[in-house]
């Protein structure tokens, strides 16, 4: 029988391989660079792009290394003339139907196709694209699709279906007319798309991008009659550095605040503040549900992609979803209804901008529930990537700015609120505060190991003051699907479930810098844990500003004003699924 470890020959060199591995895995381990356009780590290979083909002795055709399993004694040539010629021709073929607009493309410089053409030395092409342009899909508030730039690698389709369990897009048409699209060729806006933007992250070209609000924000900044207030989400400060070429996992919180001020924002607030507020409201809601026999398990509501997902696919779970608005929307509501009043500015003169790691937030801020008298609580959402663009446009170099503190009163946060940026963070913060609410004592060990890390599904079972509490954390909607199906199937041990739309939570959000692999996401996460480790205040209920807000304005958690400003309800949504 075959032993687990075997030897194979790669470009004339013997290397070790393990049974079950693909050629690509071995080559990558051996630091042999193999270009791919369609490969997604962790998902079954698709074999679509053929960029990773290698010559396998004895095989009648070139074989795709991404899917071909190793076998003892196989001889591989990863860069023979035949292989290189084929790869170059494939790139040339792609270019022959690709629009010539790299200079105007948002992906310029970060485009895999561009890189391949450069690296493989494709310097001419023998045919030009034949005129006909296909319409861009700009129907979605979050995501813009440009079929002309699509190389049909299928990564978006697979992420949408296999990771997120949404399947809003698939291949449509045949032959050269094949394109990625929604059912019945409708726009994304009426599809089951949850706006998570994971497709943008995997897209090798500029075919998928966020719907940019940079121009609108610039206009607001230039308008002397407007007060432009910005909030930034917990996960942005640990990823923005990547937009400036720095390695992942660096926290640039203070410098980002400084940069935002230089860019012209009148106030800089921290969404982590409302994350703390969310813990107060949501924690109280959970305690109330448990005590009063309400609908359990309770599901978190911070992640707008997830909310749309429930509305579409699991409307029977809507009563389980916490009525709390997301931290972004809470901040928006407080800015326009409380802070504006206090500052004596008319709400319509306040432009509320938020910096989010998320494309679904663009959708969320436009939801009917999220405003008052047709004035939205949040006007514009910029993703981390758009913020990078805005700052670069202003010539602001993060590394050369001195850190500054966010504005009071909503710049003050605890590290519990900051943890919202990582999958499990909401739960961790909630458990810290719930323990205090239920027992009146602080938790001894604040760091809750089982809720940390990149895993898609994490669970915690604990006894707090005689109460057996079951909590689960999932990230990636495919994982949410599996868990909800279990609950539908009768699983009873869970009281509270945190769901984050994006794998890893907001650090892996669809608005984050392009090009992060699992290690990068993990580094971002660790940066949040480090902030928590070093923070003076690590539980939400100790946020002094939050307490003051209750004293001065809200009264108490779940109180009447809270109810009006900070809570909402969701409804079943019928879309093409």
């Amino acid at each position, binding site marked *: 029988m075959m032993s687990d470890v075997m030897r194979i020959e790669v470009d004339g060199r013997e290397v070790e391989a393990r049974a079950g591995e693909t050629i690509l895995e071995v080559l990558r381990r051996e630091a042999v660079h193999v270009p791919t356009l369609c490969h997604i780590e962790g998902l079954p*290979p*698709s*074999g*679509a*792009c*053929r960029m990773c*083909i290698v010559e396998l002795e004895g095989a009648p*055709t*070139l074989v*795709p290394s*991404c*899917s*071909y*399993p190793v076998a003892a004694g196989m001889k591989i040539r990863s860069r023979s003339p*035949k292989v290189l*010629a*084929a790869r170059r*021709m*494939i790139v040339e*073929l*792609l270019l*022959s*139907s690709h629009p010539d607009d790299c200079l105007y493309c948002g992906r310029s410089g970060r485009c895999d196709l561009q890189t391949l053409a450069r690296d493989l030395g494709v310097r001419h092409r*023998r*045919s030009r694209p*034949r005129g006909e342009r296909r319409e861009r899909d700009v129907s979605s508030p979050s995501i813009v699709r440009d079929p002309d730039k699509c*190389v*049909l690698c*299928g990564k978006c389709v697979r992420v949408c279906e296999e990771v997120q369990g949404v399947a809003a897009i*698939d*291949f449509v*048409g*045949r*032959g*050269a*007319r*094949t394109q990625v699209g929604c059912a019945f060729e409708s726009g994304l806006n009426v599809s089951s798309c949850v706006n998570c933007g994971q497709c943008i992250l995997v897209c090798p070209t500029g075919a998928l991008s966020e719907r940019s609000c940079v121009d609108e924000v610039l206009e607001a900044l230039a308008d002397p009659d407007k007060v432009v207030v910005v909030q930034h989400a917990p996960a942005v400060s640990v990823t923005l550095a990547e937009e400036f070429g720095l390695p992942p996992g660096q926290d640039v919180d203070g410098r980002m605040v400084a940069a935002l001020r230089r860019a012209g924002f009148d106030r800089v607030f921290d969404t982590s503040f409302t994350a703390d507020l969310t813990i107060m409201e949501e924690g109280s809601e959970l305690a109330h549900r448990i005590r009063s026999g309400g609908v359990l398990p309770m599901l978190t509501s911070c992640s707008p992609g997830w909310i749309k997902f429930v509305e579409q696919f699991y409307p029977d779970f809507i009563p389980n979803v916490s009525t709390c608005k997301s931290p972004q929307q809470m901040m928006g509501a407080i800015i326009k209804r409380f802070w504006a009043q206090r500052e004596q500015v008319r709400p319509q003169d306040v432009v509320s901008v938020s910096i989010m790691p998320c494309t679904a937030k663009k959708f969320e801020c436009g939801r009917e529930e999220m405003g008052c008298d047709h004035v939205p609580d949040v006007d514009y959402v910029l993703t981390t990537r758009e913020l990078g663009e805005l700052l670069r446009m202003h010539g602001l170099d993060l590394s050369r700015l001195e850190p500054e503190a966010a504005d009071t009163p909503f710049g003050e946060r605890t590290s519990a609120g900051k943890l919202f940026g990582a999958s499990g963070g909401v739960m961790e913060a909630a458990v810290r505060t719930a323990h205090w609410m239920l027992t009146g004592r602080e938790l001894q060990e604040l760091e809750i190991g089982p809720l940390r890390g990149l895993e898609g599904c994490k669970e915690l079972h604990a006894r707090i003051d005689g109460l057996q509490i079951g909590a689960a954390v999932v990230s990636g909607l495919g994982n949410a699907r599996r868990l909800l199906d279990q609950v539908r199937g009768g699983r009873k041990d869970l009281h509270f479930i945190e769901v984050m739309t994006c794998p890893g939570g907001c650090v892996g959000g669809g608005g984050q810098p392009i090009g992060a692999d699992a290690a990068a996401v993990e580094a971002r996460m660790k940066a949040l844990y480090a902030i928590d480790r070093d923070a003076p205040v690590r539980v939400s209920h100790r946020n002094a500003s939050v307490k003051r807000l209750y004293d001065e304005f809200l009264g108490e958690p779940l109180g009447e004003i809270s109810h009006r400003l900070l809570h909402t309800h969701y409804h079943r949504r019928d879309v093409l699924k």
Partner: protein
Amino acid sequence: MSKPDTAAQARCWEKMRRPSPELLRGLRGGALAAARDAGPDRYDALLAGLRRERVDRPVVFVGAGTCGLGAGAARTLEAIRRWLAERAVSAEVVEVGCIGLCSEEPIVDIQLPGRTRLSFGGITADRVPDLLEQVMGGTVPAEIVLGQFPDPQGLLQPWDDVARLDEHPFMARQRRVVLVNSGIIDPGRIEEYVARGGYSALAEVLASRTPEQVCDEVEASGLRGRGGGGFPTGRKWKFARQASGDQKYLICNADEGDPGAFMDRAVCESDPHRLLEGMAIAAYAIGASRGYIYIRAEYPLAIERLRQAIEQARAWGLLGADILGRGFGLEIAIKTGAGAFVCGEETALIHSIEGRRGMPRPRPPFPAARGLFGRPTVINNVETLANLPGILERGAAWFAGMGTAGSKGTKVFAISGMVRRTGLVEIPMGTTLREVVFDIGGGIPGGRRCKAVQIGGPSGGCVPESHLDLPTDYEALKAFGTIMGSGGLVVLDESTCMVDFAKFFMEFIQSESCGKCIPCREGTRRMLEILQAITRPRRREDGPDALERFQGIMQLRELGEMIRATSLCGLGQTAPNPVLSTLQWFRDEYEAHIYDRDCPAGACKELVGAPCQNACPAGTEVWRYVAHIARGEYQEAYRVIREALPFPSVCARVCHHPCERMCRAGSTGGEPIAVRTLKRFVVDRVSPNTYAPEVRPAAPGGPRIAVVGAGPAGLTAAYYLGVAGYAVTVFEREDQAGGMLAGAIPEYRLSRSQLRHEIDRMLVANIELRYSQALGRDFSLDDLLGPMGYRAVFLATGAHHSRRMGVPGEDGLEGVIPGIRFLKEYNLHGRELARGRVGVVGGGNSAIDAARVALRQKRVDSVAVYYRRTQAEMPAYREEIDAAWEENIAIRTLVAPVEVIGRDGRLAGLKLISCRLGEADASGRRQPVPIPGSEHVVELDTLIVAISEQPEVDGLSGLTLRRNGTLVVDPESCATSRPGVFAGGDVVTGPNSVVDAIAAGKRAARMIDNYVSGRLLRSLPKVRLPGVYIEPVQADEEEAGSAARVEPPLLTVSRRRKNFAEVELCISEEQARREARRCLRCDLEFTQPA
């Protein structure tokens, strides 16, 4: 390669079997189970009835498969029922499937009590009453009977004088294993299948063999996948059998998608139980309890028949749980697909069954390890599965006894395209493609030649005619660069353009590619774009587009090989095959498209424009004058003709009219427009003065041009140069002008007065004609270009030297005359050289001309033509041969001269040897092979040697010549190896047609003009499309129905035999206009009303 043995040839159908006792015992329901229980008599009677060994009343079988229904079988059925009802005849009407001879559909079989079953072809509803009347009355209409069924038991009385159906040329070479019941049994009745031995193999397998034994047996039989790949079936099964999994699946791939292939459909429609039995055996062998039939929704009848069959099999205990009480269960579900070609690829097919978009995934893992729903799965094609009952019943050795070393058994092919008999044939592997096309298919209709055979559909390749001896064998076909495929076999003739054909497949692939992998999606699109660029005209033929076109061939190959090497699935890996194989075998056609902007087959419309115009070497706008004739505008018609041809009335009489050969009215099933006859009508009717060329006066002291030879090429060049303002001198060796037109073409074909008038009108002001001036005798090229002061010379001296036979005794005998000399002596000088018994050797036009001229000479008694091949290979024009034959000239073929026998210095006879046709030579014609010992002598008084002609080389010294004495010129510029010297006509091409000589003269005139003016000696190829709109004339209703070609009246044989009166006469105005209205007006595709 083994040929089918004679015993099998005489019996293309396998012997009928009886249901095995094993099966009978296990049946849980149905008529046979009931009869079994009722006792042997009842059982035997039932069986005999089901097997049609005994019928109590007439039975009428109607082929009602999809092909039959398409040909009108539904109306035929209705007519039969009506006829029977009206006459109150008690008869059984049975709908059967397809026997395979689709070109004869609707096929109706009739079996009268006690008689053998008769089969009739082409029975449309209107022919039903006649047929039934006759057959029921005991007579057989001979012209529509296909044959009578064999009756091996000898129980029935055969019909006299009716051939056996299994001896029909379509059937004789077949060996029907898969199709044994097709078209014979009622596919809607399981009884009939069982009565002929169906399901007995399954019963035997379940009772006495382990699954491993079944796998072994199938492996030993050598059965390979019939869907295209040819993977050994037994081996595939073993992989799946050994794979671990709680559930295994069997999938029958009935997603037949090759254009023109329909054998799977035929099996499903005609014998569905054979497929189900095969599936049950396969499922048992691999351990599958669930089976799927994946079939396209476009096959509604097949789906219906399969549904019905599954239901019946379940009712009889042959499907479902515990089959035949043996503990094995199988459920079969039908899954209909939307008809995507890629879903024939197994992983895409699996995706489709799983409810996802039919897109392939990389293999490994192979479906045998991880297939449907992640479980081990075997996918076999319909024909593969339908072979299993036979293999399990008769054993591996029997099956392996058919076919070749690596390809066992039989293969079903769907023959379509340009072949007489189309349909489904099942032949032993190893049968050559030539046998399939010519012996079974009956060859090419319409006297056209076979060009190639496309085998394997869009994944396959073409096999040129010269390689048709290739056997149907997986390895042999693969080595040749094509594949067996699922059995599509398209026959292509000369009217098919191979570039267009490749383009068709590329279009197909582009609309069927799933779009997943880049090489297939983008690469085939790129290939298609190149093919489109090649086959379409461009606004500018010299811009970057042209460059792209020139790169085409190189890039097609490069792209094709990359697509083949890197595509994800079989569809992509084989997609370039049609292009690569046509490129390999028909590169000249690609080059003609690219460099000459011409489609030799006349199929690429956008290059060809109107095929008639394209076919004319002189570029005459044939469509245009035909349209004018239809409108009665004869003068306009004349002008159009005259514009292109300075010799209109010559061409109206002797042109070999290539336009008619390419006429679309002729290539689409009808007869071509009689173009030359119409032209004759115009030139006879309209005064030549209608057209007066505008001649530019020659400038005094301007450049002078010499033309040597006053034949059609020389005079044409002189004319166009003269019109353009050059002073031209024509030097003619004889004392009259016309060249071969005057010297070789007999007066009965071309009246001398017409010829003279035509030449006189051509001699415009700037032309001087000098007679009796021979090159090499009276002047030399050096003289012309030197002291005589000509700037350029056009050599058009023709080919006047008759070739010798090269046999002993040929020289020095009185009575042996070279063909051209014989003709010239008569035509130019009125001397009759022939007498007595005249023999002519040769098969070209000059041979026939010589024979017909000889016949008209006073001292001649008889004339015979001797030719070494058959009449079909004779280069002379068909109508000339026919006329000669009518005039009582003996035409003896397959004889070659070996010796001329003389007596006293005078010819006495000719010794001939008989020949037979051997292999084809480089020209594609089959070579005559002498038969030793067949020499014989014919006595002759005159022997005219008219094998071929070549130029006389006097005065050509210094120029580059070919071995046969013809001049080498640049085909584009007519320039010889000496600057300033141009040449055209027969001196360049050897004996050729008048219109080609005219075309050469026109081109030379243009090039000489270029040369003298210091321009490049080049002309970019140009696509000439119709550009003038001429309002069409509506044909009336009566006319639209009857569209027979007009034939010119001929002088009766008695009135032309001994004189030189013109044989062909002119048609009437009424005939002309009617004929002209028949024109399909291909030009209208390119022109718009003003």
